[in-house]
């Protein structure tokens, strides 16, 4: 058992920070800030990361990676997340869409789709949720009818992140067999977002524009060689993808960065001696340490070759609640001006904590609600009977 990073991993972290300090302009506040320069910047950042071999580090060498270890990859994810994810929409490619294609794709699909991801040249979105299929994702209705050597896709997806970036491709879940039990009639299709019949409608959210969208499919033709995995075998692909995703997001790292910012604020504003300030920030730090360790636990199991679905869910539960707690405590400590947003000269920390609050309203809902995560742990981790 060892709780330290190696000297090499620490040096890499320092190198990354130096790179990001230089590459990120002062106006960078994440891609949902409504700043039109943001998404183009993320393309530049991904290209620079690719040049340095840092974009797909943990991927196998044969697919454009350097087989870097789980921990070096963790350091990278932490620094990216702490800086509001300057890889932008492409982080999904690296975290799980690429790995899914490696696991379930044909050689020809891998040759076609992985290199652009490795070069930082492509944006993917995922078409999962529908207006009537959220937590009950398996009840999805978007239809993929197989006929005349292609699939014809019709239906609607919602809460689709990055579709209007614009995304180049979509990892789409569709029903290929309406007659089968719901989990067994789903397929995963790789859809060109420039295909005729696709309409993207952005959904404005409390976090700002350019995050979530509706995507409408009207008889969209998808070639047969864009089926990922087996027809009707999509559910296994989904579950694998969700586990990769849960383990791959270092959410606690942004919370950690905000905590550091609040400590600096407390010292500079002469309030570091106040008991409520000290205890509020200490409590946050303690929760952060707990979440970080549980993420590392899941990663340790992954490094040992396991697929830790229960442990990843437990880490996710801690992450989401940490993020919301950081907002709550931070806003309270910062006082009345905490409600001011970036751009207002009186906004403390340039509105970072208000922004963090807005961004994290859906944290316990997205990618598996807190309640679904708990049901998963109850069923698969504790052996409790199916909940009613």
């Amino acid at each position, binding site marked *: 058992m060892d709780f330290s990073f*190696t000297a090499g991993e620490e040096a890499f972290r320092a190198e990354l920070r130096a790179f990001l300090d230089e590459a990120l302009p002062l106006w960078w506040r994440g891609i949902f800030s409504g700043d039109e320069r943001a998404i183009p910047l993320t393309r530049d950042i991904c290209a620079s990361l690719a040049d340095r071999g840092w974009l797909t580090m943990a991927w196998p060498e044969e697919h454009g990676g350097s087989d870097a270890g789980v921990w070096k990859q963790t350091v990278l994810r932490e620094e990216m997340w702490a800086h509001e994810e300057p890889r932008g929409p492409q982080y999904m490619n690296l975290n799980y869409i690429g790995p899914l294609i490696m696991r379930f794709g044909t050689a020809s699909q891998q040759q076609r789709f992985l290199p652009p991801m490795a070069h930082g040249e492509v944006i993917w979105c995922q078409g999962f949720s529908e207006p009537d299929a959220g937590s009950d994702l398996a009840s999805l209705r978007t239809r993929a009818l197989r006929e005349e050597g292609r699939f014809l896709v019709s239906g609607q997806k919602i809460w689709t992140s990055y579709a209007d970036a614009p995304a180049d491709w979509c990892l789409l879940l569709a029903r290929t067999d309406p007659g089968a039990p719901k989990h067994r009639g789903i397929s995963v299709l790789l859809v060109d977002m420039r295909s005729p019949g696709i309409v993207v409608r952005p959904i404005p959210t409390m976090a700002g524009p350019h995050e979530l969208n509706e995507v409408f499919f009207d008889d969209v033709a998808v070639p047969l060689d864009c089926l990922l995995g087996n027809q009707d075998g999509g559910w296994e692909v989904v579950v694998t993808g969700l586990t990769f995703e849960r383990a791959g997001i270092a959410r606690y790292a942004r919370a950690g960065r905000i905590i550091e910012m609040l400590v600096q604020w407390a*010292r500079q504003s002469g309030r570091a001696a106040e008991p409520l300030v*000290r*205890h509020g920030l*200490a409590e946050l730090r303690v929760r952060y340490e707990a979440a970080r360790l549980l993420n590392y*636990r899941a990663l340790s199991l992954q490094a040992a070759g396991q697929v830790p679905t229960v442990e990843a869910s437990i880490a996710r539960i801690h992450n989401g609640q940490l993020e919301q707690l950081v907002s709550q405590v931070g806003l309270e400590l910062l006082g009345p001006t905490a409600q001011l947003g970036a751009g207002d000269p009186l906004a403390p920390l340039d509105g970072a904590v208000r922004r963090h609050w807005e961004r994290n309203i859906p944290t316990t809902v997205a990618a598996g609600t807190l309640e679904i995560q708990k049901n998963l742990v109850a069923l698969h981790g504790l052996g409790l*009977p199916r*909940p009613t």
Partner: protein
Amino acid sequence: MDLLLSGEQQMLVDTARSFVERSCPTGRVREIDRDPLGFDERLWRSMASLGWTGLTIPEPYGGGGRGVLEMTLLCEVLGRGPVPSPIIASAMLAALPIAAAGNADQRDRWLPLLASGEAIGTLALLELGGRDEWDAPRLAGGPVLRGTKMLVPWAGAASLLAVATDDGLLVVDARRGSVRAERHVDLGADPLFRLELTGACAERLDGSGEAHDSVIRRALDCAATVQLAYAVGSAERALELTLEHARHRQQFGRPVGSFQAVAHRCVDMRSDIDACRYLAYRAAWALDQDGSPDLEVAAAKAYGNEALRRIFVHAHQVHGAIGFSTEHDLHLFTRQAKQAELSYGSTTTELDRVAVAMGLG
């Protein structure tokens, strides 16, 4: 970075688990709890024969030379009994200060006895009217000690008493008389004693008063961490009992664990136990490294105190009335966890330590 146990650590844990299952089922725990001193000589001897009483004592004195991390792993398993023994007091509160501050002759005389389990040690720290473990002791130091200490763990069974005075740490051999230990009305977990010293001969450990202060702080940090791990083991057993109940207790035609409200409480227990466990492991690991373990120890204790409280509230809630009956085993673990929560650091003082370690001054 690797949060999995090494092969050697796993072996220690596996051996300890068989021991607890075979030699200390809850029936035995209840028997031992009825003893006025809470102590069982036979159980202690079997722990000594497994090398556990000397696990962290340096090898030249007949100990195992292992670190706080191994002690933590062992005690986590012992908490599953919950095995009643003075192992934490003896190893962390007595042997550790003697190894750190004793002169060569003192170490040669006392450490082998503590390692073999022939002597049992403890630390007499808290004084009447004191606020917590970090108050400066006012008991007058000297070759003969007169005064009172309170809340001394395992003093009834202990032969070697490390006593904190205004002149640093002194060691008293309780067998030589002028020492009276009277058991408090404690929680029924680790027995706590009021200690009357009526002219007890005492030997001072080497080093300045300040040096002894940091020795005591380190001993308390180690005890806090290891005690937290013990409580995590108790919490894990409490979760097992809770799940058993949730699976088998039927109401409204179904197991109560099939109701989401009940299931989610169990998940919250699992989530808190796991967080506590890894925070405790990391604190123990940090105590075995060079450098200050302040942040790691204080974070584990601050989180642990609150988490233990939550865990047992959930356990009792899911059990319903049956968990309240002392004929059921849950209370054995509840008491253990409550004592751990209330010993060696309150949430408030530990959070303040975290604040200092974070740079808030």
